[in-house]
């Protein structure tokens, strides 16, 4: 299988994720690490959830952003590789029923997607409210 035909989907046994306000937050329940991806990364994650191939993802992003096909396909391949390395996704042979949506050509500014890794989830949850030294949120 070529890299362009590679399909992955979330490693649902160990991983939970949400996309909120254009940021994907992915939690590895097995080891407590968590990850974030910005706008382009979160768009890729939403397509990973639909088991889109690397080529399909690149095609969608090329239509949405002002970016060369070769650049975006290389970025998607790199990011998918990182997601696989971190155990957040697994490869799949499953082809989604619905074809990838055709988006009207867009020219949004493109920023190469990055996968940010954090290991302070317990600290973050303990910070409710999340800014230390500024009092406490009233209990529910």
């Amino acid at each position, binding site marked *: 299988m070529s890299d362009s035909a590679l399909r992955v989907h979330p490693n649902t046994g160990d991983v*939970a*994720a*949400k*996309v*909120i*306000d254009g*940021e994907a*937050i992915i*939690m590895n329940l097995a080891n*407590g690490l*968590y990850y*974030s991806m910005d706008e382009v990364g979160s768009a890729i994650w939403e397509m990973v*959830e639909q088991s889109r191939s690397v080529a399909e993802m690149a095609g969608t992003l090329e239509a949405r952003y002002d970016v060369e096909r070769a650049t975006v396909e290389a970025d998607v391949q790199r990011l998918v590789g990182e997601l696989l390395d971190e155990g957040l996704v697994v490869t799949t042979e499953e082809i989604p029923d619905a074809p990838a949506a055709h988006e009207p050509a867009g020219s949004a500014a493109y920023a190469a997607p990055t996968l940010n890794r954090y290991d302070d*989830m*317990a600290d*973050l*949850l*303990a*910070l*409710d*409210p*999340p*800014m230390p030294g*500024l*009092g*406490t*949120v*009233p*209990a*529910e």
Partner: protein
Amino acid sequence: MTPPSPTPEERLLLELCRRQPRGDVAAEASAASGVDAFPALSALAMRHGVHGLVLSRLRELRNRGVSLPGTDAEIDETLAILRRQAAFWDMEQDRVLAGLARAGFHPLVLKGGALRRGTFSPVERVMGDLDILVERSEVDPVLDALTGLGYRSEYPEHARAEFRQHHQHDRVAHPRGFLVEVHWQLTRPQDAIRLDPAGFQARAVTLEPPGAPPLRVPATEDTLIHTVSQIEQESVRGLRRLVDLDRLAAEPELDWALVTREAREAGLHGFLCVSLRLAHVLLGTEAPAPLLDGRALPPRARGLISAFGPVGRVLDEPGRGAVVDRHLFRLWGARTDHRKRAFRERITGRGDSLHWVWAGEEGPEDAAPEPSSGLGFGLKLLVLQTILDWKRITRRVPDFWTLEY
């Protein structure tokens, strides 16, 4: 008349909490601006439990060119943390509800867990724990299912049993910091206010948030009444629940007749009026006039509540005088004779609202009266009431029921 005067930061906070900030938000920002404006506003928003909403609003207004405290970096960094925290809560809430569903339980999700999936965005409405309502008979099986999901009680068994006697919920924690409260009632056993959990369950609706399991939540009317009961329990301190109330009151299909009826049955009607008036004064909340002007309350109760300065209480430090405030509001807000009599017995020491718990009775009506235990607390309340009566007679105080900002 001179209304209570919020600080410039408080005025800005109130503007940012409105459904539609008014045109003078920039002026409020200008009045509040200073070297420490953003940290001060953040701290204030956090104290009131509305920091997610305020920061989201700051970013939204900044994108529209309105000059406000805080740099882009300050706002974005803080919002990023809130976004991650919101995502964790959403994921955990989904995991817990899916796990309980697998075990055959479909609890009602209360308060923040419900509001942030419908009325607010997850970032706007912070939550500190997941509150779920189940049938009394389901409590232990649900707690067992939560144990299977990694939750444990933080308390020794004897303390937990004691806690369950005097509260309407049990609380378990996950080692990663998540908290779940399993409720079987909506008010504490000793509360004069009684919400009807069976009614909440019967009127429940199901939300289907995208990418998440279905969620059973109370009807909007029930959520509104529950919110009012929480405002009462917290002695009107803080803005978070008033903001909840404001958004719920704005729901187009809201059945005010049902809200009023439920409030009367719960013994909350007076406090519904107080809460809605507060939300109206501070946030511009609209509601039927008879509720907003407190006409249903006896004239003396209206006057005493007004003299007590509820607006200042909202903006006051949490906890300062809150217990006394709560008792006074209950006394003045009580409509029916039996509730008022029960409350008077409580504050004058002629009855202990918990004695039926200590005696192991089914409910307060089954228990024998307790002997008098003194006048200490009740006497303090009566002295305070007398002072407020005197203040009302001798000084002009802002009329809460007609006050507008």
